[in-house]
């Protein structure tokens, strides 16, 4: 059974690249472009992991992250963000994110960290 991953980002080109890479690695994917649809999708799709952009239109990534923790099956959460301040990183981790990745990131590293998380490691 392949792991289910939900990609949440409003930048189409980033979505395209992640979609390509993760499909290549054999994951089951869904994409959302804003917080609302991300939460809606998450409750149907039961993803094992969510790649979550912080700067989203409407509900922002931090809030989505907080609400994902209330799902019956709590997914692993990787926050993707252009904000690199320590305070923001801590805030993300505090809200239950498993990993905080600053843009621009290496896709190779990201794939490795995703695999690691899904295998039960700490990224």
């Amino acid at each position, binding site marked *: 059974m392949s792991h289910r991953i939900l990609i949440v980002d409003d930048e189409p080109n980033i979505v395209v690249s992640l979609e390509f890479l993760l499909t290549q690695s054999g994951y089951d994917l869904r994409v959302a472009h804003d917080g609302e649809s991300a939460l809606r999708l998450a409750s149907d799709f039961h993803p094992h992991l969510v790649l979550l952009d912080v700067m989203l239109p409407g509900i922002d990534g931090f809030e989505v992250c907080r609400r994902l923790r209330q799902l019956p099956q709590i997914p692993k959460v990787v926050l993707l963000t252009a904000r690199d301040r320590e305070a923001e990183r801590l805030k993300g981790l505090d809200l239950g994110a498993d990993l905080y990745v600053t843009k621009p990131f290496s*896709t190779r590293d990201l794939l490795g960290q995703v695999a690691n998380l899904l295998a039960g490691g700490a990224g």
Partner: protein
Amino acid sequence: MISPWVIVSAAIGYLGLLFAVAFWGDRRSLAGRSLVANPWVYSLSLGVYCSAWTFYGSVGRAASGGIAFLPVYLGPTLAFSLAWILLRKIVRISKHERITSIADFLASRYGKSSRLGALVAGAAVIGVVPYIALQLKAISSTFLLLVRGSGRDLGTDLAFDRTSFVVAAVLAVFAILFGTRKLDVTERHEGMVTAIAFESVVKLVAFLAVGLWVTYGLHSGPQDLFRKAAARPDLAGLLTFQGPWDSWLWILGLSFLAVILLPRQFQIAVVENTNERHLRKASWQFPLYLLIINLFVLPIALAGRLQFPNPAIDADTYVLSLPLAFGQNSLALIVFLGGLSASTGMVIVESVALSTMISNELVFPLLLRSALGGPDPNLGARLLFVRRLSILLILGAGQFYLYSTHAEGSLVSLGLISFAAVAQFAPSLIAGLYWRGATHRGAFAGLIGGLAVWAYTLPVPAYVASGTSALASMLSDGPFGIGWLRPHELFGVSGLDPISHSLFWSLLLNCGLLLAVSSYRQQSAIEHAQARRFVDVFRRRSETTEVPLWSAATPVAAIRSLLERFLGAERTARALNRFSASRGFDLEKVVFADGNLIAYAERLLAGTTGAASARVALASVAQERELSVGELMLLVDETSKVIATSRALEEKSRALERTSLELRRANERLLELDRLKDDFLATMAHELRTPLTSIRAFAEILHDHPELELTKQRQFLEIVLHENERLTRLINQVLDLAKIESGEGLAGREEIALEEMVAEAVGSFAGVVELRKIELEVRCPAECPRVEVVRDRIVQVLVNLLSNALKYCRPAGWIAVDVAERAGVVEIAVADDGPGVPESERRSVFERFRQVGVLGAGDRHGIGLGLSICHEVVVGHGGRIWVESSERGGARFVFTLPALPATEHRVRPEAATAAESQA
């Protein structure tokens, strides 16, 4: 004709009733249910102002002068309705200082000076004795009138002298019983006040009774009476307002002062006042009383003139003569009792007030030193004895005055002479209340001067005129033939009636001396302290803040025994217990009295002996701390310094509050700016890193997946290029913005027609516009305005706005560029038919990285800084930029630029030809 025995028994019965009322008043007071606590009693007792003068004399005056009798009542009305604030201050001070009389008040104010107290007391006695004589005359003559049944002139009658002597004796006994009945001498007499209030009711009822009878019994109502009077040529004049107005004003002012300064008025209004709030009530109740008692004065006067054409009937007796003439004996008896009540009320209060002054200000200061050294354990009794003797002397003097002059002249003119005497107290009193600098010497000099002029211009001429003395010529020729010293025309001032003339000169000299002498000489320490206590009475918080004038090294036992000699053991014990209870210590255990206790004892004594005597008495046991003026000034200075410092502190703290508020605001602004900066940086990072992320991701994908099919590869490479462009554009914008902000980007202005720049900007979008089938209108006036701008920057603004419009307009939509010129400003607008900008965001769209909420995700490239740049450029050119709704519901971005002066481009040949060719 009424039997003398009926009259005498009625009079004695009435006086007995009065005594019962007084007794009842005292009983109620002792039982703690004081009648005097009622403001109506206070207001009625003020009616003691209405003596026989009012009761008989007003009618006499009205019979010859019409309503000229009125100012004497308008003055008090004004005093109580308007000047009650002044009265309130006097009452407050008198309560604090336990003032016993007007003489005590002035003496206390001016350094507890026994000299000044004696002067005022002496002046009051001399000034008021004729007034008392007037009451004796009224009672005696009305008595004889009743007995004989006709109104012949009684002035030189032997029976009159006998009668008046008996009347004076009876009244003296009565006043003694009333005013000095109790052994414990205090400044207040509640029983007497109750009786006086009762008398006010009696005289009011009696006067109204005769008034009603005359108006409605004798005639058929006031209209009838006035019609009859108007028909008589000699009476018609009484019904109109007549001058001389200046004497109206003088008498108004005089009675204004008299109602406060007459010893009996001061006694009732101030000394006997139990509650300051009664003044508020009296401010309308007392004037109301005066109004009612005067209602029938004019009708009675007119009826009298109509009834008695014979001038031998004294108009002062109309009130009685009228009922007698019609055989209304019982009404006449009631009127007699009313007149009796008016006279007795006046005589009782006046003699009590005067005897207090005589004993406290004249006799006691002389006796005190020797008496204190003597063995007499009960000085209070001695004081009482002095007062009783004083009452006898006062009434004796009144009787003597009446006997020797037969009280020539009308009731009113005699009364006014007394008024003018007590009016001399006014300058010192008023200055004492409001001017700290008024000194004892100033007050003394003013009083002496004023009283001397008063004596020279009023009683002396009256005496001279009545006698057959050789001095009579001084009235017409002046003393020793010196014309400008004529008593009724001093310094050649003529045309005033004697009262106005006397008042003018006496008050002028009085005020002048008070001001001059006070300004010339310094105050002593005690004067200074008293001046402050009086003038600042409302500012004083508590007794403890007062300047200690007594040295503390006095045994309590000495104070106690001194008090006991005046007040008796019981009252002394009560007063001292009250004091120690309020201070919270046991007096039995204290050996030495402190300054506060001595000051308390002094005030306690002052309530009995007056301030000046109290000071002398205390000085016999306590050491007076003679503070030097310097020491006192230091104290005063320290107080004012403390006040000044606390004011400065308050001011400082207000300033600090203001500063702190400003700082808080500034801090809030800074925090807001900091937040904006953080937002800017975060958005900036986001805007820069997002394309970088894509570029890196696709570069890695292309690198790691060489097997990708070609179309995929091309697609990914295009994305890389696109993101690269986006990044470049963003970086250019940031750099532009920085340049414009630093001012560097706005150098190199040139004069250019707007048309040209609009054409250039529009031209750059020609391809897209055509491709998307957009309707693009350019609406420019025939003579397109010229501006002086940085050409490239304005083009950049136009391009930015156009590119926004293109982004948001509908498919195959509409865009319009408008140029207009008005009031020296060129206005350029770019409108579209898109969704528009919501009202709430119209200001913030020009902030950096602000994106309008309606934008779809992924469709926002390029807008982040575009409008910010437009804003900076326009403002840099001295214009404004804003957004509004377009005619088709979309957005309409408008900016302005300063127009070049019209003349300048009119004269340009090419502009002129362009205009011509178009015309």
